[in-house]
């Protein structure tokens, strides 16, 4: 058990927990856009920033990917923290002025959001979809395309690898802005512009999963395809 002080309150934490996890367990509210409890933290949105005492100095750190240490001191509600979160939200708003999720977040942090339509859905590069695809689904159909020395990627973006995609739709569920769209009509599902043939449940007749996803599950688990013809509700 570790002892930590958050906003002056002495709290207990388990080894391996992040500051964000301890805060959430103790009802200390911290804004996030790129965090999901089942995924490795990514530290992209910088909204979860807190102050941590490092070598006697208060330093800013993202709480989602900073582990708690014994006797750590953390502050989550100072002016510096609030201003930093506001700046992070402001910058997101600057780049994605019409994205509803971003505007809502910025407003909740006290940013004066400029007038304009709030119906957009941009990719804000939060990495939730890439992490889900890699860590949960395990097919790696979505990868970050970022820049650096000697690479001529004009703007960072998410790369979609159609051949690897099984159409499971996890990325659409996890996307915080609605950028990843999934549409269903009849026996087809369209996601990231790739069309998938859906399998109907043997019992209720409902289309419940793309064929490619069932094949993937069968290959991965060794369960024969013939045993995967019933949807979860009828099983």
């Amino acid at each position, binding site marked *: 058990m570790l002892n930590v002080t958050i906003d002056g309150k002495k709290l207990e934490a388990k080894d391996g927990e992040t500051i964000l996890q301890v805060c959430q367990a103790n009802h200390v509210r911290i804004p996030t856009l790129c965090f999901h409890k089942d995924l490795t933290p*990514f530290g*992209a949105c910088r909204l979860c*920033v807190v102050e941590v005492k490092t070598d006697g100095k208060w*330093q800013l750190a993202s709480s989602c990917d900073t582990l708690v240490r014994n006797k750590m001191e953390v502050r989550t509600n100072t002016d510096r923290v609030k201003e930093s979160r506001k*700046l992070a939200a402001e910058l997101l708003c600057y780049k994605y002025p019409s994205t509803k999720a971003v505007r809502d977040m910025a407003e909740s942090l006290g940013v004066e959001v400029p007038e304009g339509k709030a119906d957009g859905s941009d990719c804000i590069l939060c990495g939730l979809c890439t992490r889900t695809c890699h860590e949960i689904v395990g097919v790696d159909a979505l990868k970050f395309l970022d*820049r650096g*020395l000697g690479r001529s990627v004009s703007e*960072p973006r998410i790369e979609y690898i159609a051949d690897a995609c099984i159409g499971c739709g996890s990325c659409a569920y996890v996307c915080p802005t609605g950028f990843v769209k999934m549409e269903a009509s009849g026996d087809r599902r369209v996601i990231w512009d790739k069309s998938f043939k859906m399998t109907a449940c043997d019992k209720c007749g409902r289309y419940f999963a793309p064929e490619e996803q069932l094949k993937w599950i069968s290959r991965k688990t060794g369960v024969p395809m013939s045993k995967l013809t019933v949807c979860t509700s009828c099983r």
Partner: protein
Amino acid sequence: MSAVSFSSWNGKIIDNRTGKAARVDAGVPTMLGDKSFTALMGWNGLVVSGAANIPSLALGYLREARKLSCGECSVCSIGIDRIAALLEGLIAGRGKKQDVAEIERVARGVMELSKCNFGRASAVTPVLDAVRYYKDDFLALATGKKGTTSPYKTAVTAPCIEACPARLDIPGYIELIRNNKFDESLDLIRKRCILPGVIGRACTHPCEEACIRNGIDQTLAIRLLKRAAADNDLASGGGALKKPTAERPEKVAIVGAGPAGLAAAYHLRRMGYQVTIFEAFPKGGGMAAVGIPDYRLPKNILEHETRLIRELGADIQYNRKITKLDMDELTAQGFKAVFLGVGAHEGTRMGCKGEDAGYEGFVDGAVFLRDLALGKPVEPKGKVVIVGGGNVAMDCARSCLRLGFKDVEILYRRTRKEMPARAEEIDEALEEGVKIRYLVAPVSVLADGNRVKGLECIRMKLGEPDSSGRRRPVPVKGSEFKVKADMVIPAIGQKPELGFAGDVLQVTGWGTIEVNPETLRTNLEGVFAGGDCVSGPATLIEALDAGNRVARSIDAYLQGRTFEPEMSFKGIDVKAQRALGHVDACPQEKVSLLEPKERVKSFAEVEAPYSDATAMKEANRCLRCYRLVVWE
């Protein structure tokens, strides 16, 4: 050099604009290699030495920083965009006074809030200095007067890149691994390291010593990450190298298929030249093939990487030892340029009695390893004594254990601290049962008839430091003693065999080939040299660098262009930075090693690889310490 009128380098303000001249620190850059500047913006500050357009240079800096900002965390890339837009507005005469304060506010935020060390240390640091200390230049633009933009030059490095002899884009390839793009990572590695699987196993990795993480927890496992990129490719079948876009008619001869020769061949082939390599041994790789045992570098890795270069069209002729450098003959065969990368394969003499007697059981270390690599059987009988403290000595000792020798002892004339072998090599040797006796030097080789039976040695003590900075060993008078041995392997260094060059080639006092250090040209027209035969025994990665550079130099020579050396950061401390902020300590991902008991039973590879998932996790520790400079 002109006097510095302003500097904020390292966060220390030197302001001579008021007329009072302040002393300039030794750490402030006043030149970039051989280039001077009127103003320079770098990750660590702003240096001005003449009349300069500071707002324009700041905009140039931001444009270059934007290319390096990966875009993963919102603050860095969007922050740079925001500041650049405000600055563009000011320069175009559309700006307001408040914009200058806003630039300051956002720049502070980027430095405090960014995820990685590029955003924190490099992305906007000198721009913040510029608006603070050259505020009037910016405010003047807010009065409706249009500004101008001037051209600028730019260069990028990182502490790890700077430490690497071949200057690989280390943060770049690590980032691609982090993002699960192993194939692209390998492409990036190959631009400067055409033997990634070999280097990923056997490199001395000076990059890891320079890693900024050393000051926080532990270096990135840079070598193992390179190996992960190479292993990932090999696991999926090992793709071919990219073919040249166009063929060129000029023929280039390369002597020696070692790392230098192979790197030169690869780059020259990529440029379209017709390349022939003459190799004395029956296999390629030079010291990587005949000097590094299988347990450190399995031969199939080197064979695969050599084969790829051959398949790219380099004609490697094995068992073709060049015994005489006949330029007329090479010219007659149509070769327009020659690269000598013959290595350093001849053992250095110990300078003790009896070493030239040709005793049975007395074998030079390089020869011993070569014979082993080429399949010559060795009978493991009795005790073997190895003399020397370098990697070759370790390789010989550990190989002897694997051959079945029960008693393996290394004699070294200094102490563990001065040993030139890699620390992990020494540790692994000791774990396996190699004994090391320090502060001992041989005086004469003892023999029974024609057969070695031991060494007469003398004890040493450490004296004053020598030219290498290590303390010089001094013999202790009257301390002679005998060491029994059935086999003696001196491994105290090698030098090139240059007999083939006759007396036409200029050589140095150390018996290496004399070259122009930039162009690698020898005294003979059209003849270049590099690698161990120029540097003396050095590392694989230094040889690869020579091969990379000589390809560019030969290309310039054949096309009648002047060779442009790469931008140099020499004299600038690229590790220094102002504030790092809070970085969460997290230990390096470990790989497993074979149990010492298992290791000595065979030549099986000791070190296990990273899985792809572990490699991605380790790559996530990289702080991306790109260092950017722009100047005018």
